[in-house]
């Protein structure tokens, strides 16, 4: 029981430690654009691809960007109008 409590406290401490790693510039940006990192995925992508580094785009990034950039249900023909199962 004590071991699990200790582990929990250390884990919590680690989370707080990492949460406090944002630079003052980043906090300023966040304050100015509070919804900028509304999506955890966007935040993940942004923090991984820092300015000045070669950005890396994975298939997962593309799928997430596509989902987030979706404009709504398109006007299009359904597959059932073309093919039968």
């Amino acid at each position, binding site marked *: 029981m*004590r*071991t699990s409590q*200790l*582990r929990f*406290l*250390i*884990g919590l*401490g*680690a*989370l707080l430690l*990492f949460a406090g790693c944002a630079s003052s510039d980043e906090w300023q940006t966040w304050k100015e654009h509070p919804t900028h990192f509304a999506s955890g995925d966007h935040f*993940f992508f942004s923090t*991984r691809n820092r300015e000045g580094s*070669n*950005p*890396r*785009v*994975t*298939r*997962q990034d*593309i799928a997430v960007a*596509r989902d987030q950039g979706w*404009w*709504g*249900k*398109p*006007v*299009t*023909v359904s*597959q059932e*109008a*073309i*093919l*039968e*199962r």
Partner: protein
Amino acid sequence: MALAVHTGRRMNTSRTTRWMSTGVRRGLAAVMLVAVALSTPLPAPAAPSDDSVMPVDQHTSEKGRRLAAKYTPALRELSAKVYHCMPWVEAKKNGIGFYKPKHLEGDNRYLSINLYIDQQPSPEFAAFSIEERASRMFSRYVGPMVRRMAATPGLLNDSSLDGFTVILEWLKQMPASPNARPVHETIASFLDRASAADYVAGRVPARDLASRARVLAWDGETSLGPIRLTSWEDDFVTTYKVANYQVAPGVSCP
């Protein structure tokens, strides 16, 4: 005079030290795990979710189910290749399977793939006629997709297979207002098995492929019926690269 220290079971300091040491080690391990979890990118899946391949039991005839049961592993490989190697393309849910084209009589089973092409429509592209836009999309994708589908060992010689369908959908133009729904254009190209075999074997050149296919078109939900296209050799699929795109580990693209 030293203070008397009760060294009962619960006051055994060496045990406490070991307990603390173990706890600290475990705590450090937990910290390391959290650090790794926060700093390491999530690995891309080795394959997309399998919902792009229609399950065997959803084919409505014995012929369709037989084909699907035999070739589903190959279709999943095809789906994975499209997912990883053509990241600007999205295979739709249940978009790959042995479907029956609605315009044909009888239980004709065509290996079909239904793709959404994620591209920004340029003013130049929008200025073309539907036939011109469709010809460009046909040349760019239909031949290469037929080659990929026909690469499944044994498929081209399987007498149960009647042909191939490639459905291509793209954004016609940017929505006029933020509240407007986007309108997509769609072409469905049907190629019988003999024509596909001739094309894959090089007996039919790319410039003759459109004339061997039946192509139906839609503007949004409105059917435009059969349209006549021209086609040509286009290596876009093999040469286009998404900037800075990193293929997932373990995946090789041609």
